[in-house]
């Protein structure tokens, strides 16, 4: 979905139809029939993977096109040992994280100022913002390169553009959902404008900001892989592309598996944060019957994320030398003509 369109349908699906004029029945039915999470949820994906491996062992899949799971994993392991696969993964993650940070820094204040302070200006600017949100920044990549240079800044600003719109429109949606009674009650109890903003508006909007950030991260990660496939010299997308160019089929699948796992892990991490941070949220990931993570678990998770980010940043700075390192076998090296 386009970033703008994605955000206009609130990511928590149970809001959308109600906003569309759906009846209260939709909400009632929702609560009754939402599936509970169970431990069996890992069984089906595991069974799929086992089926894949079995079919390829039985010779039903042509190994030229579909290698088995074991071969793919072996290729991934080989790339880990000989081509710094993990560093590539962390470089990709660091790019996404930096882009997310930039998008949050730009999108949240913009949405607050337009949605909270100057609604008139917002009404005037909204059509333009929608048009801008439709721009696929990946198309204008050369322009970003001219403006920001050939390095990481161009890539990161493309990703930040992708992530910006879900965050911006998500924040606006959160402000729109703010119960005016709460704001008035706080005012009535003697809170000033600033403290209403800090203690009512921001907490009320933060789950929506976070939901927008989740969509933004997912979109940015999708586009990142595409961008790395065409224009990068490091990162997982580059590894897949390189493997494709060399017709190293198991390696395509191996790097692909790592990308998929990383995307899933990223999403789980954000759901985990969502559940831990926004305990006051009425609906959403917190309502699935799982216990909410405590402050210790949250702190540990954030620390782990920071470590990964730091390694990614170092890897990013050294990407070129990393790939032309003599310890990397020639077939994994960047073409330097």
């Amino acid at each position: 979905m386009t970033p703008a369109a994605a955000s206009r349908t609130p990511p928590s699906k149970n809001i959308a139809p109600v906003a569309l004029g759906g009846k209260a029945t939709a909400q009632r039915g929702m609560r009754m029939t939402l599936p509970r999470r169970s431990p069996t949820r890992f069984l089906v994906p595991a069974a799929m993977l086992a089926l894949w491996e079995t079919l390829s062992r039985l010779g039903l899949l042509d190994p030229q096109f579909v290698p088995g799971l074991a071969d793919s994993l072996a290729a991934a392991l080989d790339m880990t040992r000989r081509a710094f696969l993990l560093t590539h993964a962390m470089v990709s993650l660091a790019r996404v994280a930096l882009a997310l940070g930039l998008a949050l820094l730009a999108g949240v204040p913009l949405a607050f100022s337009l949605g909270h302070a100057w609604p008139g200006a917002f009404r005037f600017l909204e059509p333009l913002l929608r048009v801008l949100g439709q721009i696929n920044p990946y198309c204008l990549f050369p322009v970003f390169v001219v403006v920001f240079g050939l390095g990481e800044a161009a890539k990161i600003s493309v990703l930040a553009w992708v992530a910006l719109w879900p965050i911006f429109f998500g924040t606006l949606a959160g402000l729109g959902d703010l119960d005016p009674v709460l704001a008035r009650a706080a005012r009535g109890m003697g809170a000033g404008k600033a403290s209403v903003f800090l203690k009512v508006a921001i907490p009320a909007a933060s789950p929506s900001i976070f939901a927008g950030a989740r969509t933004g991260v997912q979109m940015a990660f999708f586009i990142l892989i595409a961008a790395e496939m065409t224009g990068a010299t490091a990162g997982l997308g580059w590894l897949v592309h390189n493997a494709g160019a060399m017709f190293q089929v198991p390696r395509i699948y191996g790097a692909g598996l790592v990308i998929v796992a990383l995307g899933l892990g990223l999403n789980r991490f954000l759901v985990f944060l969502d559940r831990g941070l926004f305990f006051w949220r009425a609906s959403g990931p917190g309502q699935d019957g799982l216990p909410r993570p405590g402050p210790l678990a949250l702190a540990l998770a954030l620390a782990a994320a920071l470590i990964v980010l730091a390694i990614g940043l170092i890897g990013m700075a050294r990407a070129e030398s990393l790939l032309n390192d003599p310890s990397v076998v020639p077939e994994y090296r960047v073409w330097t003509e």
Partner: protein
Amino acid sequence: MKRIGGFFGDSFYRFGSIVLFVLAWQTLCSTGLAPGTFVASPAVIAETLAKWAVNGFLARHGLISLSRALYGFLLAVAVGVPLGFLLGGWFKAAGRILDPLLKFLGQFNPFALFSVFMLIFGLGETSKVAMIFWVSLWPILHNASLGVRTVDPLFVKLARSLGLSRPRILWRIVVPSSAPYLFSGLRQASGTAFFMLIPAEMLGAARGLGWLIINAQINYQIPQLYAGTAIIVAIGLAIDALFRFLEGQVVRWREKAAV
């Protein structure tokens, strides 16, 4: 929010900011503040588009992109809606078991898969259509099954006690009450389909708007690059507007039917 009435006030709010933006952009370009080496002015873009429209370039590449998006999308509708209805309504247990798998598959990075699609289906149309099918399938499937699950069971029970046959229950109750979900899924999917098609065409195609863009990128043809981007934005907005319109029609009809 207070509305300024009348045609003028309305179009002021609808187009004012866009017109101002384009005018400012043109001014910056004509005064030379934005160098022509990396910013094409709106006039240049319009000129390029007119040239493309006349020599049939636009129709050829635009139509091929649209048809790829359309085929993939229609295929996803044909698979996703019935499957979502079946999993959400008829085989609830299967739906519950498969739900994690479907969510899991839906989060797959389409570009990691695109390499595999290219490998299996080759450089032809199939790989692009398969990729669009893949990215549109999940929102459609998910929303169809969600829509069926949120049908008020009271209505179904009532219909059953009134002696309605199963096909009629499906058509008179299940489809109308899940329609808002369904359309929200279709709109999401249509946006995603077109958004993802462009990078896919940039990675592996010899025709289409994505190819146009990558060609302009490689040859550093700034006017063509901006013109291609403008067309993609226009098509994206048009698709979004179309599905919004359809959604509005369906929701209105549903409200009337429900009263």
